[in-house]
């Protein structure tokens, strides 16, 4: 059987689970959970170096960027200007071109500011970045992002860190039909069944952070998510039966005594 891989900006990946590296108790817990999850891509943030203590451990000491792809993210940016500055710096750290753009518009629910997001996508694409875009699940805005050159469309299932699961399945289904670049559910996954649903709807991948990092046992949840993504994907590919309100016996009637 042909290996079921997917491509982002011409780079091939086997795992359809992308995980965040935030909110863990410590870096050891984070690196262990990532290993268990089988993820090949992890999101990372750009922040100031601690100049008063150079002995503090760095993320790169725990997660080797040569083995797992770092996906620099603009988490916490509320303007296009800040997001562009962050990603240009990220590129400078290690030559990263594939980045995740996230321009937030609301401090409470962390919904994306789609106008700023679209503007940033246009600029970054022109600068040669391959931009994976965190966005709302609005099909029109998602189409605009794709037309602007986005390398992946990453609609939220629900607010970041909320764990509510996919709130607007209709929109995700419409997005699946119209999106030609990878469609990745980003934000709002709470449990394994949410990830299964996303994959069964035909999404190319899911991005999970809080649901794993803040689970009572992050390692077990990392494993659960790994299998959820595999299971959902297989279910999608296998061609499900049509739902039917009538029953249909699993055992033949012939030969009944």
């Amino acid at each position: 059987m042909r290996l079921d891989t997917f491509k982002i900006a011409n780079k091939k990946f086997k795992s359809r689970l992308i995980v965040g590296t935030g909110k863990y108790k410590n870096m050891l817990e984070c690196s262990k959970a990532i290993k268990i999850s089988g993820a090949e891509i992890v999101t990372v943030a750009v922040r100031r170096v601690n100049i008063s203590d150079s002995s503090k451990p760095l993320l790169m000491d725990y997660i080797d960027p040569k083995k797992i792809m770092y996906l620099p993210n603009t988490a916490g940016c509320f303007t296009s200007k800040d997001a562009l500055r962050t990603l240009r710096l990220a590129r400078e750290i290690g030559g990263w071109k594939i980045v995740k753009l996230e321009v937030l518009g609301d401090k409470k629910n962390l919904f994306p500011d789609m106008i700023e997001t679209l503007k940033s996508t246009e600029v970054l694409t022109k600068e040669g970045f391959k931009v994976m875009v965190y966005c709302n699940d609005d099909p029109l805005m998602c189409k605009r992002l794709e037309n602007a050159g986005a390398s992946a469309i990453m609609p939220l299932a629900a607010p970041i860190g909320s764990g509510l699961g996919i709130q607007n399945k209709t929109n995700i289904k419409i997005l699946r039909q119209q999106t030609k670049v990878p469609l990745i559910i980003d934000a709002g996954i709470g449990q394994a069944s949410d990830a299964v649903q996303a994959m069964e709807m035909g999404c190319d991948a899911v991005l999970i952070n809080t649901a794993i990092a803040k689970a009572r046992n992050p390692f077990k949840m990392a494993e659960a998510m790994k299998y959820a993504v595999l299971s959902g994907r297989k279910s999608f590919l296998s061609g499900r039966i049509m739902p039917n309100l009538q029953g249909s016996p699993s055992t033949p009637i012939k030969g009944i005594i």
Partner: protein
Amino acid sequence: MNKKNKIKIVVNGRVLTVNFKFSIKNLIQKLKTPISKVAIELNGEIVDKKKLNKIFLKNKDIIEIVHFIGGG
């Protein structure tokens, strides 16, 4: 200490006093920053890491040194 030979710079929001003719490379060495794991900005412009020893700091320069940390 001769104050005339000193300049004040701001690194990651903190004021540091360094010698006149202090390069960014000197700064990186002083802070023991692992250069391959960071990016540097001088007054809002990204600094080419190959030219660190050629860029000398001026009074009131603002430097940002960033790296990757855990995030969503």
